[in-house]
Structure formats: structure tokens, C-alpha cells
């Protein structure tokens, strides 16, 4: 029973406000100068989060704001408001997105309070979370997983490798309804995107 009493004494660990993370976060120009970005994430003066791999080569010309990187939710599905089941599929990651994605279940973030859950099979999934660059053998697997999901369904592209290929390859050939950039995206950024995708608060 020790763990029980310890847990009670420790209190609630879930956070309403998350602490700031510098890298990765939204970048802004803080100095003048030319920057050679390895992934061409700087077009004219605009910083494109969908291409940025947060390699810090552009520091100190661009500096982090500490605000979590915004995701683009192109389509949200109100029927998932109370219950949102995710099926992660790794088509060619470095392992970082896998880990950050699993961390949204940590007590500090607690995805289940938003009605977000993980499932072991695409048959029961509402959304397919695609991570990593496209690798030849996983193309078919991705296609099968997508086909196995029942309607309505969402496709979530997690991490810059899935969005634009990052620095290591080509992105998977699938249209994403929710695009979460970052390398890897922080659990906070993932959680915000998911909550918006299921049209919560």
C-alpha cells in the first residue's frame, strides 16, 4: 500500500499549463543576416515550420520564442469529441516521434482526460498517426492500415519527416488532415493538435 499513500501525498501531477520548451518552439527573426538552412525552411523572410528540423544552424539570427509549434488542422471531426482512438504507424522514423507521441500519456500531459486513447489495431481506430519518412516496404503497410480503418477517419502527420521529409528522405504519399510539425514535436504541441482535431476545447 506504500505506493498508494505515496501517490496520495504527492497529489495531482497533471498540468494545466505546460512549461516552456525552447527547442523545438516557434522561431522568429531576432537579428539581421543571411542563413543557409539545410532544409530550405526559410523562404524570403518567412519561417516555414513544416520544413524546419530545429537543427539550430540559424541561431542566433533566428531565436526561439518558447511558444509551442502550431499545428495545422485542415479537417476536424466532431464525432470524435468524446472519444478519439489513435493508431500510430511508423513508416521510417528515427525513434524520436515514437517516443514523444507515447509521452502524451505521461501523467503531466495525461491524454486520457481529453478522451484520447491508443488502440492496437486500425480496425478500431479513428485516426491514423503517420510518423517518419517513406521507406519502400512500408508503403504497402501504410496503404493496408489506411484501408482497414472505418469511416469517419482522420490522418495525422506527426513530425517534419512525415510532413515534408525533413533531412532524411521523402514524406509518405498520403494526404494529412492534421499536420504537426516539429523535430520531434513536443507532447504539448501534439496534444494541442489532437484536441483541436477532435474539436474539443
Amino acid at each position: 500500500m506504500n505506493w498508494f499513500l505515496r501517490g496520495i501525498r504527492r497529489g495531482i501531477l497533471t498540468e494545466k499549463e505546460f512549461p516552456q520548451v525552447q527547442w523545438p518552439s516557434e522561431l522568429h527573426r531576432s537579428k539581421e543576416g543571411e542563413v543557409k538552412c539545410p532544409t530550405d525552411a526559410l523562404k524570403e523572410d518567412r519561417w516555414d515550420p513544416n520544413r524546419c528540423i530545429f537543427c539550430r544552424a540559424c541561431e542566433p539570427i533566428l531565436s526561439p520564442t518558447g511558444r509551442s509549434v502550431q499545428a495545422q488542422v485542415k479537417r476536424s471531426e466532431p464525432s470524435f469529441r468524446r472519444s478519439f482512438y489513435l493508431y500510430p504507424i511508423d513508416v521510417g522514423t528515427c525513434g524520436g516521434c515514437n517516443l514523444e507521441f507515447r509521452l502524451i500519456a505521461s501523467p503531466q500531459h495525461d491524454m486520457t482526460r481529453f478522451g484520447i486513447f491508443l488502440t492496437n489495431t486500425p480496425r478500431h481506430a479513428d485516426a491514423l498517426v503517420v510518423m517518419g519518412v517513406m521507406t519502400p516496404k512500408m508503403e504497402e503497410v501504410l496503404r493496408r492500415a489506411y484501408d482497414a480503418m472505418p469511416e469517419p477517419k482522420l490522418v495525422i502527420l506527426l513530425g517534419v519527416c512525415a510532413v515534408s521529409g525533413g533531412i532524411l528522405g521523402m514524406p509518405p504519399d498520403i494526404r494529412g488532415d492534421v499536420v504537426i510539425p516539429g523535430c520531434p514535436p513536443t507532447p504539448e504541441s501534439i496534444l494541442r493538435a489532437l484536441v483541436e482535431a477532435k474539436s474539443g476545447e
Partner: protein
Amino acid sequence: MRIIGDLGPHCLTSEGLAEGPCKYSRPTIGEGGYGSFNFLYGPSAGGLLESVAFDILTYGESIEDVRALSYKTRHIKVGGLPLRDVLFKVERINVPFAASHTIAFLTAVENALGVSPPEEVVESRIAQLELERIRNNLLVIQRLAEAASFLVPTYRLLYYVEEVNRAISRSCGHRYFLGANYLGESRCQELHLPRIDVEELRDLLSNRIFIDRLQGNGVVKEDWAIGPAARAAGFSYDARLEVPELKYRDHGFKIVTESKGDAFSRMLVRLEEIEVSLKILEGVEVKPRRFELPSREGRGIGRVESPSGDLAYMVQVEQGSIKELHLLPPSRINILLFLRSMPENIFTDFPFNWESFGIWISEAEVSIS
């Protein structure tokens, strides 16, 4: 003298390079009899963190033989690229081991260029490696607890993993050390220690049922094992003591070993190593520092102790760019050990044994040219 693994065309041993390839004894298991069939686990399954397929020869519930089939092979082109770009790619071969990969790569480059990094950089590197080790050991134990549906420890460990990630982010900027190490530069500002109560973890994990699932599971006794798997089998193998450049000896580092070589011993070794890492970190000071890198040519090897074992890079540098790069990831050897330790067990032992090795497919299946 111990064999570490194949590094390019050579065999890396604890005393340097030898003629490759390394000689491992590979057992062969014959065809199955009546009633046997091949059971496929993966590539896309809920219980696996990454995409890999296992072809298991079984009579039903029993495991006679396992083969690993690769599905997410990434081809990374580094030949001829400038060092900075190669560094970005190296960081992203396996992000949970990013510090180990980066530091091994940079050590190899510095060896090739004949440079010794200054003390602050070495201290900063030790801090990064140990923080990464703490986080990954916590993650391995969390995956084991999650496989057992042992929920309170699962969430406590996940809490700690997140705490360590935040501590890393406060220390070095990025939660996974990306962009914290550059050629001739170390950008970590200061050291924030995560608060981890190892006693609490020991207490949480001492559950008879949980331990029973790990004991006797996946016994590894090969003398070419590396990392926690080797130390759990009683071998005192650790790159932190063998590679003098990392200067671990100054921090009073002691090797943790167990004797049984099963999944339980591997978990115990990792648990103890968390404590050892925390103790090392207490005596380390981190400051940002820059230093000059000459433009020379050369070939060098860099080896570090990643959370799952020896990780080595061999580079050939020419005019500020890479001519040749070879990688020895610990997961490649750990996968061999895993496949050899799996027969004679049953299906339910599978996830525990797999997680206990701390294997990352992303670094094992990457092909570099």
C-alpha cells in the same frame, strides 16, 4: 580482448580494429515438425514501438526460432557532404540516442583531425551521455512495466521520463540534444538535474508477479554481448572504462554487473545504472564552449557507451567533408542476442525479452552511403 562488432569492413574490438567480419557462432534451428507453422508479429502492431516484423516458428505458444524482417530501412547519403550537414543527419539516425551518436561522431572527427576537445566540452559530453542514459534506462523499464500492464509503475516511470526530458531541455535547449553539439562547439548552458527517487522505483518494481515474468526469460551468455545485456551476464564490458578520452575514471565510475543474464538482470542493471549516472552528474559542471577545428585529413574512430551498449563511428575526413562513414550501432548486436535468446521461451515472454534489450530499429536498419 572482446569483440564489439562489425564497423564497416573491419571488426571492432576493445583493442582496436581487426580483420573483419567479426566471427560469431550462429546456431541453426531446423524445420518444425507436425503442427508447426510460422507466426508473424508485425510490422505494424500495437505492442511494438517501431515497425519491425518477427517471423516466429512455433508449434503454438512455443517459440522454436525467430527471424527479424526489416521494413523501415532508410537510406542516408553522406558521402561527399560537408561535416555540418552530416552532423545533422547523424543526429537524426536515432533521436533517443542522439547524444551518443553525435558525441561518437564528433569524437571520431576529432580523432581524424587529431584534435583533443577542451575539458569543458568533455564534461558537457559526459553530462549529456549520462542524462541520456538515465532517460533511456527509465524508458526501458517503463516499457517492461507496460508490457506487464503494471500500471502504477508505468505511469510513474513515464512521469520520470518526461521529467528527464524537461531537465535535458532546460540544460541543452532541445529535449533530445539536437543542435546541442556542433563541430568545435558545445551549446549546453548549464546542468539541471532531474529529481528521481530510485528507492521508490525499486519499491514499485518489487512485485512477485512482475519479477516472475522477467526471470529466466531470454538468457544471454555470449561473450560478444555488449552493454547492459553483457553486464547482466556478468561480463564487465563498458566503453566508459575502455575509452580513455571520455575521462569517466575521474568521476569515480563503477561498473554494475549481475550474473544471471536474463531479462530481470538486465532490468536490474539498468536500474542501478540510473543511480550511478545520477551520482556522476552530481560532480559535473556544464558550461558552453567553443574551440577550433583544423582542416586536415584523416581517419578516426569514436566509441561511446550508449544506453544499450557500445556505439562506434569510423570516419574519413577530407577537406571539411566526409569521404567515408561507418556506423556500429549497439542495436545491431542486441538484435542478434535477442534472436538467439528467444527459442525455448513462449509467446508471452516475447515482449518482455524484446523490451529488455532496449533495441531501436531505426539505428539498426539504417544504411549509410
